[in-house]
Structure formats: C-alpha cells, structure tokens
C-alpha cells in the first residue's frame, strides 16, 4: 500500500515538473488542421475578378439553408466575374451554417472555400449574416477591384475555366 502511495505521488511530482499543456488562448493559438472548416471566403482570380458566378449551387447544396445568392448579369463595363453571371447578393448566416463544406463541393468554380477562422461570436442574430463584402477576400497584388471595365469580348465563356485567367 505504501508503495502505491509513493507511486501515485511520483506521478504527481512528475507532472509538477512538466511544461503546462494549457494553451493560453487568446494570446496563443493551437494551429488548426489543414482541412479544418471554418468561416467561408469567396476567392478571387489573380486579376481580381471574383470566382463566384452566382449559380447558387452552394445554396442548393446547403443542408441548413444558410446561403442566399442572388445573381445579376455581367457586362463588359461592369464585370465582376469572368462568366455571364455574378452574385450581386451573397449572404451566409453563420449561425445556420454547420460548416459541413458541401458548398465547397458544389461550387463549380472553387469560389467558396471554408477557411480557418473560427472566432464567430455575435451579440445578435442579424450580425451573424455575413454579406459579400465580408466574405470576399481582398484583391490580390496586381489585380484590380471589381467591378472592372474590360475590353468587349474578353470573356465569352459562360463559365470560366477552373484555373486562373491569364
């Protein structure tokens, strides 16, 4: 019995000299897994055009009905995305979203990606609805913000090819 007590205390003492395992959140953050599904981002091509073509397949795939997309037509004067159509309204209700990633799977242009931000706390439900402004990533270096004015006929495919347009 005595040995057991010593053994137990030994474990305690061993742990006393170990580094504390507590992660000092928020100062220190544990890196998330590479494929962690956090808050969505709407991606852009290198030239700044939005990848989203407003097809609303993400909204169709969403099991929680968290996504609302309303599309409009692109013109060469006001071009948002390479195809014929772009999302004029794009809303995701973060409180409805279950971060399943079906929207990512459904997206034909890989425009929507679930990134690694998980700090989503809100004071009211309205502010949990992220609009296109919040979801869209900043314009990459060398790109132009949308809407862009482009030369007529530069984009005549209804759906852009998957890779970045030159």
């Amino acid at each position: 019995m005595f040995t057991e007590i010593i053994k137990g205390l030994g474990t305690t003492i061993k742990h006393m000299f170990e580094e504390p395992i507590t992660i000092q959140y928020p100062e220190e953050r544990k890196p998330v897994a590479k494929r962690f599904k956090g808050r969505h981002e709407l991606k852009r091509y290198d030239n700044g055009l939005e990848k989203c073509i407003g097809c609303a397949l993400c909204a169709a795939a969403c099991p929680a009905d968290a996504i609302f997309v309303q599309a409009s037509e692109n013109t060469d004067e006001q071009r948002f995305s390479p195809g014929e159509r772009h999302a004029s309204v794009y809303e995701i209700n973060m409180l409805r979203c279950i971060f399943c990633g079906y929207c990512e799977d459904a997206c034909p242009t890989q425009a929507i990606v679930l990134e690694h931000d998980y700090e989503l706390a809100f004071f009211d439900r309205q502010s949990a609805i992220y609009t296109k402004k919040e979801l869209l990533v900043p314009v990459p270096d060398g790109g132009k913000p949308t809407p862009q004015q482009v030369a007529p006929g530069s984009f005549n495919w209804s759906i852009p090819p998957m890779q970045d347009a030159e």
Partner: protein
Amino acid sequence: MGAEQKLGNMGVVTARLEDVINWGRTGAMWPMLFGLACCAIEMMASQTATHDSSRFGMELMRASPRQSDLMIVAGRVSRKMAPVLRRLYDQMPEPKWVLAMGDCASCSGVFNNYALVQGVDEVVPVDVYVAGCPPRPEALMNGFLTLHDKIRKEKIGKWS
C-alpha cells in the same frame, strides 16, 4: 485623471465604480452546466487542462442555477425542454447572462422542424451567440471574451 495619478503614488487607485464592478463580474463568472447535445462535449473540453477556462475565472461548472451567473446553452433545445430552460434561467440570481453555444441553440441550425425551439432567444434573452457546429473550445472561449466585452460596457443605470 489627475487625482488618480497623485493618489496612485500613495498606493491608492481610483476608478469608476462601474468599471470595478464590471471587472469583478467578468473575472468571476460561474457557468451553469447546461449541456444538451454534442456541443456539450466541446463545452467540457473547454474546461480541460488543454483549454482551461478557469483562466477566465470560470472555475466551476455549477449544476445548480442558484450558484451560477452564466447559462451556456449547449445543444438543441426541444420544445419540451424549453420550459425547463426558462425555469432554470429564472432560478439564477441576478446578474445573469446567457450564451447560446452552437447553431442549434442560436437558431436551431440545420434542424428546421417543429420539435425544436428555433433559437433559445425565443425562451430566454441571449447575450452572445457562438457559431459553429459544434464550436471548438477556442470558439467558445472567444464567446466568453465577447461576453466580457459586453459586460465591461454595462452601465450602472442598467443594473438590475
């Protein structure tokens, strides 16, 4: 401000009563155990050594509403559970806060059906909603910090 600096030299600190009390409240908040579903697992994880929510003064998860300040609703609330939730909330002493953890508690998330309360704000006033299905412990702690922000801004006149 001048007085603070001078008195500080004498080992006295002055501050507004609001700030002091709000600071006190943020630093010693005892959450009530209200795990209803999968979110509760993550809530428990936030109490473990890895995440250790006692760093925020949340030493204990109290099973009794009489001893807690913060109700963490972790999980979907069925219509049958709703009166119980409200009763426990009513039994909590003032001041008290409610944190809706996860999609189901916030707005019933993926379950858009008759059996579940479509967001616990139908039943109790919610201070902070935390998104996630379920939110990871860090996300929950981010919710705590958000709540702290809110408490720090509370005014003396609003105290009940």
